[in-house]
């Protein structure tokens, strides 16, 4: 089993399987953007062609990396992390609000 990876607000959890009903997410200028910082313009990004971002019907997102080489997760202010081939659930950090519910962390 692959290792869980965290880079800033982004947490990648290895999974055994991903939902059958799933759609690929289009790249943004050639990059997969897992999270985008609106006040810094920085992004948690992957450029490797071996990587595909997938979205399930409940909006859960998964990352699939094929081939032997894996992919690299980069960010302007965090160290780059090598991601081993496999399938991952993409979890973005969240925080609590007055509305008795959580919302995604905005940065």
């Amino acid at each position: 089993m692959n290792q869980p990876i965290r880079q800033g607000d982004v947490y990648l959890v290895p999974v055994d399987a991903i939902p059958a009903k799933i759609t690929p997410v289009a790249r943004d200028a050639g990059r997969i953007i897992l999270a985008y910082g609106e006040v810094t313009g920085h992004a948690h990004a992957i450029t490797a062609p071996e990587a595909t971002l997938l979205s399930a019907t409940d909006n859960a997102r998964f990352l699939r990396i094929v081939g032997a080489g894996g992919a690299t997760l980069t960010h302007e202010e965090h160290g780059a992390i090598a991601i081993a081939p496999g399938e991952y659930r993409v979890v973005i950090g969240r925080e609590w609000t007055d509305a008795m519910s959580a919302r995604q962390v905005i940065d």
Partner: protein
Amino acid sequence: MRLDKLTPDQEALLPVIRDEWLAVGLSTERADRARAEAGVRAAYAAAKLPPPAIVVWLESPLQGVVGAEYLRLLLDRMAMGTGDQVRDQVWDQVGGQVEGQVRDQVGRAIWGQHEAGWLAYYAAIARFGLSDLTHPLDGITEVARSAGWWWSFRDAVLLTERPLRVQRDERNRLHAEDGPAIVYPDGWGVWSWHGVRVPREIIETPADQVTAEGIAGESNVEVRRVLVERIGAERYLALAKAKLVNRDDWGALWAIAAPVPMRIVELINSTPEPDGHSKRYFLRVPETRERRDADACVGCGASLAAVPGTAHQAVAWSYSSCTACYVPVVQT
């Protein structure tokens, strides 16, 4: 002519060209209007267009956007057209070498406000003997060297001034502690704290007037961190009368009683800053069992602790995980 590999002399020129274009991108000189307008005419000629009959000068990008946003399509088309033509012939051959040394550094330093990032690349190519290929960019290059943002239309051009001041920190991120980090002649500007763009009041409110409620009410976690950094994390916790609930290897969990009951977890960034200090973030976690939505661990499906009791539970909660499933082996 074809460029397959840079000679040592050409490689030695790259830092020179980089610095030249950094200076272009960061210039706070008044616009050289005659030179900019000549550049505009050359750019129009390269696009096989007659020179624009109407020339308008404004004071800032904001004024420019308001005046011209909906007609910027033409500029895009022109830049792309000339850019692609050059790019196809030179990009693959030498792109990697030049991009690594020039394009990235300039692009990052000027925060995309100007064209210097990509023009530096073609300026290098031109310097290495392929000026026949880059010739269509000469006009755009002249404007970049002599003015701020500009917009082109078939019969008109709108140009704007350069900023009066650009302030950066030791890592070249926009940063000013007493006012705008970039300011234009009309007063429009950008407030920024170590590269984090923030509203004016975040920078200009005196530190002794920043309140714990103001910090807790800030919805953007980076902007909140800036506020905490300005007054100091210890002072923030004291102002909020925060009580320590738990401290473990993952961080510290604090409880705040008033005016709104809250639990916040204090986390230390995994990647330290170059000066050795690490950014401290404060994230709010549930302080109540009341829920609008069900909450299960994304890893194993187990239900999560309704009110995190340890810093580990709190950080795991923020990634929708139970503590058993929140075990990042690699983190930055």
